[in-house]
């Protein structure tokens, strides 16, 4: 027995050592990029752009550290292979001389996003700056097969007279008489430029292509259809129907759901996991969505770790095996969230940030994962009014992408979803055909997924649709100390005592009344005698 244990220990330590060494190798190969922005410009909701760039870079396997230009310290740039500057508030200039100087001297990859492209930067790109004022522009590809109308732009700086080696990503066409074309994304050597950034639509796809190219990540990915915002409180009948419809249509899909960490014996929970098991059997995979954040502090880490473990263990006990974690992108910018939740999985699906992200310990030191998927709302692809319907064109994506649709909550919205889905002309990514193994480790359990097979602690396992017989443990009774027992007994005793006393009291009153009345009766009786 002891020998077996020793062997086990040896094997475990060997495995974990190899894991660690794998991690370090990987860390060395991923480029590190410093992402500098001038302002969050919350008034224009531009913090979403910052979050989108962060997500995009993580999905492109780039390690990104984010900082505001004002917080930059001289010499920091030397630790990075690339720098991205984003201008959200062009009315002001970046005043941090240390950053301006370091950026000028920087030899690695450089990307400028937004306005205020300096003459130096333009020269480095080998082009001339042209300012476009008050224009209604259309973004298109060379052949104009794909085109999308952009919102009216006040000012925009584009480049002309680019050298022959320059690569252009998309063209901007003005609605003027001459119908001139200006380049959108430009890449010259390891220098890049994007005149503006958008979190969705064709602009986003082109920007993702450019960023992927700049940091050496070129690829073509089929999107993964993902149903988001599923909770145990969603309309489970609709969810069940949805999975059935998708199964019948032969569409592989993923579901991003939150869960609860207790009350597993409730019928409600059993019903919830049954629907999830059905999804697993219908070619769907489950992503565990991280919980909603309330009043967290720096010390919330252990609590989060316990909660995530409870989620996963309770899922596993009911044969629901998530293939990854889905989360709002800002969780990767927070040390507590990253270390206690995200690192449990090697596959993460990055969703947009909520309106007001709540951090526990923001450090802006995003890390990369074996597989990162960028969650792109399907609505941003179906822009019929503004040009080509991107979904219909079925473009492939330069980074792993999930096209997300919100969980419908009624029959009607289910039909609506199916209708919108039919309009998207994608060859959907099938997780069951993926070679890379996804893995989640939590506490003592680990579960994986590879080529359509689920693994529990390394062993392949099949999922039954029927409810699994739970090993019902005897109820743990809280330890009763004698004091509590005493008070309990005392409470009951007093109750009985009072009831008795009360009865006696009432008895006495009645008795006394009779005695009192009899006194008069006897007297009158005596007198009459």
């Amino acid at each position: 027995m002891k020998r077996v244990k020793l062997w086990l220990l040896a094997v475990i330590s060997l495995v974990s050592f190899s894991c660690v060494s794998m991690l370090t190798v990987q860390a060395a190969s991923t480029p590190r990029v410093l992402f500098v922005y001038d302002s969050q410009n919350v008034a224009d909701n531009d913090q979403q752009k910052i979050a989108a760039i962060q997500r995009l870079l993580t999905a492109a396997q780039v390690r990104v550290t984010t900082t505001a230009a004002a917080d930059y310290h001289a010499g920091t740039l030397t630790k990075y292979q690339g720098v991205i500057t984003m201008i959200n508030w062009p009315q002001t200039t970046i005043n941090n001389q240390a950053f301006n100087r370091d950026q000028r001297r920087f030899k690695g990859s450089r990307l400028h996003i937004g306005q205020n492209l300096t003459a130096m930067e333009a020269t480095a790109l080998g082009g001339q700056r042209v300012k476009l004022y008050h224009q209604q522009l259309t973004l298109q590809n060379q052949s104009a097969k794909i085109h999308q109308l952009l919102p009216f732009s006040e000012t925009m700086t584009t480049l002309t007279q680019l050298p022959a080696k320059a690569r252009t990503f998309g063209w901007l066409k003005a609605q003027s008489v001459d119908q001139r074309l200006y380049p959108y994304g430009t890449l010259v050597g390891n220098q890049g430029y994007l005149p503006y950034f958008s979190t969705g639509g064709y602009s986003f796809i082109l920007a993702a292509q450019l960023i992927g190219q700049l940091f050496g990540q070129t690829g073509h990915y089929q999107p993964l259809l993902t149903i988001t915002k599923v909770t145990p409180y969603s309309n489970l009948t609709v969810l069940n129907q949805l999975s059935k419809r998708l199964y019948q249509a032969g569409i592989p899909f993923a579901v991003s759901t939150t869960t609860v960490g207790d009350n597993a014996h409730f019928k409600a929970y059993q019903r919830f996991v049954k629907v999830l098991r059905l999804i697993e059997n219908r070619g769907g995979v489950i992503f565990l969505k991280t919980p909603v954040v309330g009043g967290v502090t720096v010390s919330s880490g252990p609590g989060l770790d316990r909660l995530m473990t409870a989620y996963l263990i309770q899922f596993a006990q009911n044969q629901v095996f998530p293939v990854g974690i889905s989360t709002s992108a800002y969780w990767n910018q927070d040390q507590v969230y990253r270390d206690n939740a995200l690192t449990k999985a090697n596959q993460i699906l990055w969703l947009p940030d909520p309106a007001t992200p709540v951090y526990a310990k923001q450090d802006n030191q995003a890390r990369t994962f074996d597989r990162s998927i960028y969650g792109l709302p399907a609505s941003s692809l179906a822009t019929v009014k503004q040009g080509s319907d991107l979904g219909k064109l079925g473009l492939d994506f330069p980074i792993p992408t999930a096209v997300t649709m919100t969980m419908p909550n009624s029959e009607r919205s289910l039909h609506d979803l199916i209708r919108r889905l039919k309009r998207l002309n994608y060859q959907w990514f099938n997780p069951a055909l993926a070679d890379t193994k996804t893995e989640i480790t939590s506490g003592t359990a680990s579960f994986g997924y590879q080529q359509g097979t689920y693994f529990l602690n390394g062993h392949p396992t099949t999922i039954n649709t029927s409810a699994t017989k739970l090993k019902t443990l005897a109820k743990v009774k809280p330890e009763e100390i004698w004091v509590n027992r005493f008070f309990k007994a005392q409470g009951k005793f007093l109750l009985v005592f009072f009831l008795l006393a009360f009865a006696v009291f009432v008895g006495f009153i009645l008795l006394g009344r009779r005695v009192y009345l009899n006194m008069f009766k006897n007297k009158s009786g005596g007198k009459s005698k």
Partner: protein
Amino acid sequence: MKKWKRRLMIAATKFERLMPPPLLATLLCAILAGVLIFVPPINGLADNGDYYRAMYSNGIYKLLGTHYNYFDFVTQKYGLMKYYNEYSSVNFSSQPLFVKLAIGLNKLFYSKTVFDIRFMGLVNYVFYLGSIYLVTDAFTYPAKRWRNYLIALLVVFVFGDSSFTLYFNSFFAEPQMLSMTLYSFAAILLLARHRYRHRWPLIILFGVSTVLLISSKSQNAPIALSYIVVAMGLLFLPNFKSQRLYLIVGMGLLLITGGLTYKLIGSSFTQINTYQTFSHGVLTQTDDPSKTLRQNGIDEQYALMKSQDYYAKQFATINASGKYVQKNLLTKYDFVWVVKYYMTHLKQFGRLLDLASADVMITQVKAVGDYLPNVGAKAGQQVTFFTGFSSIAGAFFPQKFAFNCLLAVALVMVYAVGFYNDLKQHQIEGVLRFFLVLGLLSMFIFVPIISIVGDGDADLAKHIFMVPVSIDLIFILFVSDILNHRLWHAYDEGQATK
């Protein structure tokens, strides 16, 4: 020997003249509370997340650049807004009056930019001491006997308890509720015992303190009904016929205050309460609520929300304050649904009420720390100085709601005897006292029920604050009445000295 005895007697009379029982009680309370809340390192209560209601609308904010402690430690210094304050008051309350007063004193004596919580403590302290004086006076008047010192000490033991005075250094409304309850109680009792020649100051004191009490917190709105019961006693005042109209108008005002306090709860508060009634009430104290929910017309999945807070303490499965829950859950039930549910699940309701009764006498807020950081106290550490009464009562008071009901019936019967006797003798004392006790007992019984129906077991210990206060008052009243032989009939100097 005789000489010694005479000297002792003279000293005793001198002491009695210099230090009557009310003054002694006030002085002792002043020392006890003063040491606790003013002498550094000060004690108080840490923020449980509710302070913002009293802070921002009054122009107080968490000082920037310092680590603000929730739950663990008391915060002493806050910032005072210098410019326009965009936060408007979140609900109708009398609490801002007291906070504004504290801010005024702070600006006058300390600083225009930094707020020291001790000024809030000072305001609470002054009101509290006044109420202690009046209430002791009411318990002991007019008997000039040594046993009244015993009553004074009892007042100190009960209401000088640190579990009450710790509240002073906080932005909770409880300290004002405590002193206002004592004021209105003392006013009625002093009136009953003919303490002053004129009645109107006491009647006004009763009215003002009761209005301030009812409007101090939205959950106090139903208490207005209890105070209507108390005020009914005033209708029996002799030679009062011409003023009865005023009195009825006054009672109407009380009702309106209660109604306003209830009506003007911010919509977010209604939603918090509606949600927690469900998650912290309906879903708790039962094994698996899934089936009963379905039977009562709510999606059974919501059973999984058991014990979830409206605002998640740390993490939550779904944002309870979000649109989804609002649309799909909160519209599915209302107050009537909850009442009907409990009526059909009496066993569960009984368990909830027992849970409330278990908390009745625990007045010390155990969820938050009482110490400042950096004084060597552990996070969330509790003060044990002068908490004798609250710990004894907390440990020994029976934890069954049925017991409370029986106790209330017994007390009503006892005081009904005094009421009957005095009514026959055309005395007012027993009459006023009976209605006073009846009003307090109605709080004792109904506040837990209302808390459970209105907000479940969330923050239960704080919601039933009026329960221990009312039963403590009745307890001292009972003891003092026995000591002064005035339980069964109005006080009679001749009989008492027999």
